[in-house]
């Protein structure tokens, strides 16, 4: 069993003419790697009709519907995060309820609002009530604002996690670029923050630092935009961890934070 907690798909209204090829490539590569379940999100229109990290409610609804349909077509290997923009509180809450009722298993917050902003609190309270985790996009140490996103770093996500101790948060893509050495000490004392190992970065020493910081029990395997880097980390973890520890990272930790029955083994 291998669960990718950070996957994405494209749809027909995204700017990429090759969207079908990219989706097919993800599934094909997943078969080679042995990924059992891709837990995925779609960030609205990926910029076609609203910005990727500031998606409109209409774009999110279309994307979430598309992902639900993909989940129905691939019930054995695709699960969905409902992606919402917390700037539209009422729409976000309604969309979370609608998509969780339809079978999604988590919430994805991109970078539409800083993670420590009170506007995220209603979404977090709903996550606690529904018992689903929140995957939050994180820039590992944001030294300044970047165009196109209101990216948060681990300190801001940590503040949110402290306000909502009953919610499980996934700190997104520790290998996704940025100063991961800044993030890890911040989340160390926060038991409800899990480290998602995805991202294109495969820095030597990063996985050791993750294990040192939060322990094997709070590591989640994932790929994001580069499946080969996910596979490389998995191969290195085979060398670094014991077999039972590796099972935790491969899927047991994920199975423990998503709702019961989310995965075939539950």
């Amino acid at each position, binding site marked *: 069993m291998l669960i990718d907690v950070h996957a994405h798909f494209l749809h027909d209204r995204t700017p990429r003419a090759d969207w079908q*090829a*990219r*989706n097919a*490539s*993800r599934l*094909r*590569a997943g078969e*080679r*790697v042995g990924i059992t379940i891709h837990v995925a999100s779609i960030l609205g229109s990926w910029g076609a009709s609203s910005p990727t990290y500031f998606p409109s409610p209409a774009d999110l609804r279309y994307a979430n519907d598309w992902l639900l349909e993909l989940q129905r077509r691939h019930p054995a290997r695709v699960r969905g995060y409902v992606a919402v923009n917390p700037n539209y509180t009422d729409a976000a809450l309604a969309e979370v309820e609608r998509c969780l009722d339809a079978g999604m298993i988590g919430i994805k917050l991109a970078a539409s609002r800083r993670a420590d902003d009170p506007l995220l609190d209603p979404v977090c309270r709903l996550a606690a009530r529904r018992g689903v985790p929140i995957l939050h996009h994180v*820039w*590992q*140490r944001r030294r300044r604002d970047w165009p196109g996103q209101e990216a948060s770093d681990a300190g801001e996500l940590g503040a949110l996690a402290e306000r909502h101790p009953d919610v499980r948060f996934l700190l997104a893509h520790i290998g996704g*670029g*940025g*100063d*991961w*050495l800044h993030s890890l000490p911040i989340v160390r004392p926060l038991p409800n923050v899990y480290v998602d190992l995805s991202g*294109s*970065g*495969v*820095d*030597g*020493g990063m*996985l*050791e630092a993750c294990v040192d910081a939060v322990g094997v029990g709070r590591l989640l395997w994932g790929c994001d*935009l*580069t*499946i*080969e*880097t996910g*596979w*490389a*980390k998995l*191969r*290195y973890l085979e*060398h670094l961890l014991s077999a039972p520890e590796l099972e935790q990272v491969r899927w047991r930790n994920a199975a423990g934070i998503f709702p019961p029955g989310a995965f075939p083994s539950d």
Partner: protein
Amino acid sequence: MRIDVNAFVGSYPYRRVPGTSPEGVLGAMDRLGIDEAWVTHLPGLFWRDPAEGNAWLLETAARHDRLRPVPSVHPELAGWRDAVRLAADAGAPAVRADPTFYGIDPAGAAMRALAAACGEAGLPLVLAVRLEDGRQRHPNDHAPELPAAAVRALVRSHPRVRLLVTHADRPFIEEVHFGSTPGEAERIWWDICWIWGPPEDHLQTLLGTIGASRFVLGTGQPLRLPENAGAKLDLLDISAAGRTAIESGNVRTLCQT
């Protein structure tokens, strides 16, 4: 046979990295079935005279026959031609320069002179686009990334220069390859360490558009997990012959051209 053309020995100044000793690199090679690695003295890359690390590098490589030394040459320092000559005499497969880390013009007169000297000596010149993701570098690590224009300028600077460019991504490679004549492009080899696999399939695309003959196995270890290069190859749709070419055959061409 697997040859890793992009590896380092020695510590990194900006963060703790495990496995930087020669024994650590050899252990990683054993783990991954890599027969031979081209290694550079990593600390020296940041020294005022990077060639001062070459003696240790050559001694280390002499003790470990699976490690092939790639000495560093700073072409604005007196005596740099001696460093090239020493490398050739020691049987080094290539020499390298990291002009942006030295703070010199990557396509200036000194670098062009080095490229020409390498061409005359029959030694490939190794250039790295970057060592780390620009978003995570130490706040005092300001060296710019190698510009694609510099690679184009250097390959044009001498008809016999051969370049091995590491840590380049797809846009960089495409810009240089299609911004060069076919004859120039045939004198540039690219390592695969920074090229994305699926679902974006950048490496698969490049193998189709540029051809497998231009690519070689490089890991960037120990700064990067060497497992990444193998995983990337395992996810390609490629013939056994094509894979063998990337893993070792193209390196022989690079060295024998």
